[in-house]
């Protein structure tokens, strides 16, 4: 966990003065937002967190209304005026409804999944109604990303929605500011709230498409090739809790009136040590990618594997948790 790669946002190639100034403004704006109230989930959206503005369609309708108003006023057309005012009233009500639709929604949690660089990270956001009101069309989005599907919440219910965030580079990634918005009921006004998930997510390096075969890669310190459990049937023993179902010898069990499990000779699992130095490749990133591919292969083949990454050593092991540990180490490396 040495130097974390701070941002997943692509750095702008032209770091002009205007850009810097804009960044400064955004940072100040973000700070201002944070001062206004809680911004990290879990939070309940209230008056101070909800912003509302007309949508583009809303402006268009406004323009239409203005035209109607001018025309009606000019021709002293009272029914035309009434129509204009009626639609304006509907618009104001819709603004209010949009605000109420967000008010009292609780962003209960925001749990990121895991992703290899270049894949999208699934952020699961759970929303709950705290005011005993049905909510309609709550949409979660983040700048530059396609919005997640809208959520309808029945009164007092909760639901979750998944926002896909693309990743680019391996390493620690800040989850960008997330926007919960609604345009219910007419789409003339958009009410929204911002929140920052506090998590940072470690993005794993992208596995190489092509990697040398695993066995030649690791310096195997085992004698045999990987044992396949169906290979060498050894005998039967009493069934113990934890034995997988498919190992139960049903016919034999029937004969002996109690459950028996098949036993295999388990030649020592192949133990491989994956070393960065063994991975071919021109750059560090290429070699890390190959290592990732190896980890995935090893995991698939149920090898026992360890890893030597510069100063980090991971003892051989297997299983999901082990692979996550390895991948995390690779993600942070460098």
């Amino acid at each position, binding site marked *: 966990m040495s130097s974390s790669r701070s941002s997943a946002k692509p750095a702008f190639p032209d770091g002009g003065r205007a850009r810097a100034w804009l960044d400064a403004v955004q940072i100040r704006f973000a700070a201002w937002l944070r001062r206004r109230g809680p911004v990290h989930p879990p939070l309940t959206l209230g008056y101070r967190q909800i912003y509302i503005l007309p949508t583009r369609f809303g402006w268009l309708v406004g323009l239409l209304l203005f035209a109607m108003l001018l025309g009606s006023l000019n021709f002293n057309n009272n029914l035309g005026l009434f129509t204009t005012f009626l639609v304006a009233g509907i618009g104001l009500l819709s603004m209010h409804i949009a605000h109420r639709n967000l008010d009292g929604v609780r962003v209960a949690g925001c749990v990121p999944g895991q992703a290899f660089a270049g894949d999208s990270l699934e952020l699961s956001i759970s929303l709950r109604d705290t005011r005993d009101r049905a909510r309609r069309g709550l949409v979660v989005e983040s700048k530059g990303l*396609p919005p997640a599907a809208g959520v309808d919440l*029945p009164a007092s219910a909760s639901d979750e929605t998944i926002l896909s965030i693309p990743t680019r580079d391996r390493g620690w990634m800040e989850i960008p500011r997330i926007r919960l918005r609604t345009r219910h009921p007419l789409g003339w006004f958009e009410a929204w709230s911002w929140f920052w998930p506090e998590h940072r997510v470690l993005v794993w390096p992208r596995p190489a498409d092509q990697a040398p075969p695993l066995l030649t890669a690791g310096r195997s310190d085992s004698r045999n090739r990987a044992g396949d459990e169906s290979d060498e049937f050894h005998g039967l023993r009493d069934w113990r809790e934890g034995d997988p179902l498919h190992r139960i010898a049903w016919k034999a069990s029937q004969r002996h009136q109690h459950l028996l499990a098949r036993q295999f000779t388990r030649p020592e699992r192949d133990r491989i040590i994956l070393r960065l130095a063994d991975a071919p490749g021109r750059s560090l990133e290429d070699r890390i990618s190959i290592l990732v591919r190896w980890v995935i292969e090893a995991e698939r083949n149920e090898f026992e594997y360890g890893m030597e990454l510069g100063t980090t050593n991971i003892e051989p092991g297997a299983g999901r948790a082990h692979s996550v540990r390895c991948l995390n180490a690779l993600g942070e490396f460098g």
Partner: protein
Amino acid sequence: MIGALSPTTVVLVVGAFLFAALPHLAAMPPWLAVIIVLAAVWRAAVEAFELRRPNWLIRGFLTFGGLALVILHYGTFWGRRAATVLLCVMIAAKLSEMFRLRDARVVAALGYFLIATQFLFSQKLLLFAYLVVGCALVTAALIRIQRDADSAPAPAKNFPPTAAGAASVVRDGFLLMLLAVPFALVLFALFPRLASPLWGMPENALDGRTGLSDEMSPGNIANLFADDSPAFRVSFDGPPPPRSERYWRGPVLWRFDGRTWRRLFYSNRAPERTPRPGPGAFAYTVQLEPSERRWLFSLDYPVRAPEDARLTADFELINKTPVTTLMSYDVISQPDFRDSVDLLQTMRRFALLLPEDSNPRTRAWAEELRSRYPADDRALIDAVLAWFNREDFFYSLETAPLGRHSADEFLFDLRVGYCEYYASAFVVLMRAAGIPARIVTGYQGGFWQAADEYLLVRQSDAHAWAEVWLEGQGWTRVDPTAAVSPSRIRDGARSAVSGSGGWLSSEWLYQLRNQYDRLQNLWNRWILGFDARRQQNFLASLGIDKLPPGLKAALLVVLAGLVLVPLALLLQSTTNGRARPDRLDRIWLRLRGRLRRAGIRPSIGETPLELAGRSAEDLDNGHELITLADEYSRLKYGAFGSAKAINAFGRKTDRWRPRRRNPSALKQS
């Protein structure tokens, strides 16, 4: 975000458009209306029955063909009718390529605009229903579109999007619209009006359905007689004038070319002398329906012109601009006045002018009359009127057109006609006899709405009469029609032709129309006639007219806000809040209501079965109640709550009435 339109949405948008376009469709040429309706219905059918979408060829034809048809028929895109028809055509064309949310939104929002444009043509009371329903439907369509936008691309995991069927969306649309009404009313009352328009009104707005024209050739106001719509309404400050004096003066016609009577340019001068208001004068307010003409109507003789109008030498009132919206004006008329005691020599010449070589028989008859009454014009006129009355002249709207010698043909051959025929022939006869004469057109009579005290003058009350200039008396009104058909003047045009034709509806319908007009009158006065002037008066009556403008604006905002807030809260409890009880629950709630009325109060937290068990003790038919409660629980929580079962349960439950056990019997047991 680009989402997909669902079939329900498309059907709703098409429905809202068709409703908003309804009055426009009725006013445009039928074949164009049929094309628009077909295009719209087809688009809905494509979605509803999953037909093939219209291809570019058809869409192109709709757009450009529609444009071509409009220009062919109207010759222009300017003018209100052509423009709105074009709008309808374009929306219909847009419908055929409406595959995206954005397009649907634009189409729906234009629905509001389409509704508002209709009021450029008519603002009848009935159209208020159109306004309200139309706005609700358009709003419903917009709600549905937004539902589509939110549910794209895939529904969320646990709860699929709330069912947004057409019915529930339309209900929401109506609710939203209804709640906006008070806000609209406040704005309507307080929003400042323009005292004068910013730009002019395009000509020819009323589809050629115009009032009295400024020329007359016998036969051309006949179409007005068939028009039963109101021309204007008059409310008097004092008692109304007697029936026989209700001559509403319009254009005065001098020039005659043998067929057509026209105005004289010299008439546009200002009058040399105007009457003085005084005893015997009538003060009244006229509420004039839009006519596309500049004529204002008044009783003889208006003292001065209303604002923005002028008074001519012939005592016509001419407005500055054509009357295209309902307008009201105040007039004072003084009947006791002598118009032009001295007739200028030029005017006298014009008043005697007749086309050469025409009407020889009339001229001969005039000479004969003149020789009989050499000096006495009055006696001559009386003799003519008596002659009209004596001979076989008939008043009828069904008559023949006249040829070159129109007066000859009418006086000696045809002898069947209506006011224009009589007035025209009479004036020709007078001029031939050397008496200066002219024709006055306008309206005569009107229906007195006793309950609301106003006089309703219809287009069918249009009339033409004559004025002759008499030494010492000036221009004097003579109505030859009255000599032929006194009832025409006494009881109106309707009575004069009753039985002769079916151009007016039956008596009760006529009465009904009169009743309806009373509502229309109130509507006109309070809603349509609410202009800058009336608004000032209204504000003055509230005592807020003296406030500085900034404060007034603030007041407007505050009031509007005050109206809106409680409404929004109300809305919360209905649309956004809990779902309303479903059918099963409503059945049970009705039953609970009956129990409550029978004196059994359900307590909080009591289940239906507990309630039934408790109240069964007090009821004769308590066991039935227990059965019902049992069934309710099974339908509600079991797996068998089919619509059919619920219906059956509802029928059974709604028939059931609690019967209290006789208290005395209870005591004895």
